[in-house]
């Protein structure tokens, strides 16, 4: 049995753990193999560069750990992660002109990216990964649309999420981990936390920003310290990296690995 919780050993142990879930054979079609899979949500505010900045950095960092990653970004306001993956302006900015565009691109052998303005536009990704017998994490980064109910929006996200699963019979698309940068801008009242705890009662919630102490709900919120170890070069056309991203990715993979181990 592997001890996935050993500090400092996360990437190797995580890789080993993910292999426990796989059949021994290498096969061509990813849907023939039940790869361990997890969903992570990053909920941004409507007008902030954080959604694209953090989601591109976290996704690229996970992809360096021998894990396949699908980054699904959804929402309004620029930049989207296409900016950080150095897409041409007419590609990453194309949704601005109100055309119903889906941007879909394989970034590397272990990272693919989708952007859609609305979750109702989600559709199957055209193409798999080079190594399809490894664990898969779907990072879904989104912000809410003004005038649209948050509950309906989250339901749409959940309905569309199986399109990005690599499993033939998609397991749960409920997130294991939820990250909320700009907490005070996204979470206006306890009702939203109650909604999240209904949808994903076992999720680990990380947040940065001003988090009130008198909140209700079942979530134990872990504070995400974005003031240290983050190089805020927002304008650089490169997914951010550095101490925060490597450290947080290890924590994230340990949490997810622990959940897989629990079954």
């Amino acid at each position: 049995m592997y001890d996935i919780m050993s500090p400092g050993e996360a990437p190797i142990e995580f890789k080993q753990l993910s292999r426990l879930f796989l059949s021994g054979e290498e096969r061509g079609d990813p849907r023939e193999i039940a790869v361990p899979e997890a969903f992570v949500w990053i909920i941004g505010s409507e007008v902030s560069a954080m959604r694209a900045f953090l989601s591109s950095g976290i996704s690229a960092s996970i992809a360096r750990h021998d894990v396949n990653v699908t980054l699904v970004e959804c929402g309004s306001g620029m930049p989207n992660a296409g900016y950080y993956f150095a897409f041409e302006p007419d590609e990453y900015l194309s949704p601005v002109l109100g055309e119903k565009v889906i941007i879909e691109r394989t970034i590397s052998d272990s990272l693919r990216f989708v952007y859609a303005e609305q979750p109702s536009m989600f559709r199957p990704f055209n193409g798999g990964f080079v190594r399809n017998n490894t664990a898969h994490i779907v990072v879904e980064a989104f912000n809410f649309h003004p005038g649209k109910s948050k509950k309906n929006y989250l339901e749409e996200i959940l309905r569309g999420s199986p399109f990005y699963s690599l499993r033939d019979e998609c397991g749960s698309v409920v997130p294991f981990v939820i990250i909320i940068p700009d907490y005070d801008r996204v979470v206006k009242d306890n009702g939203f936390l109650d909604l999240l705890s209904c949808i994903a009662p076992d999720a680990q919630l990380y947040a940065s920003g001003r988090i009130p102490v008198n909140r209700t709900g079942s979530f134990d919120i872990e504070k995400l310290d974005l003031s240290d170890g983050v190089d805020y070069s927002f304008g650089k056309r490169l997914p951010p990296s550095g101490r925060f991203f490597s450290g947080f990715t290890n924590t994230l993979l340990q949490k997810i690995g622990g959940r897989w181990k629990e079954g």
Partner: protein
Amino acid sequence: MTPGRALNSDIELLGKIIDEGPVRYLFSDFCNEILKFSDQIAKKTTPFEITFHSGGCLLLKVSPYKDLFIVSIGDNSSIEIRVYGKDGFFRGLDLSLKHYLDYLSKRYG
């Protein structure tokens, strides 16, 4: 309602300097998108141009003409993009976004 949508009537009015057609719509989309970068961005409209500011710093200026609009980026207008169609629109918006994100980096740093 997003800031861009809430404040667009004077943008529409200023856009009437441009002949009716695709460039006028691009002008309106451009200005509204700039406002969506952040709720900290404010605009000032004069009869011939619109300027966008954040924290007292001039980010860019957009000036409409008969068949184009000009985007001047930075407080010394060191970069100017003439927008006649989609190519210029995307180039102007891309550079404006980069300028804003660089400005944001300085504020965080």
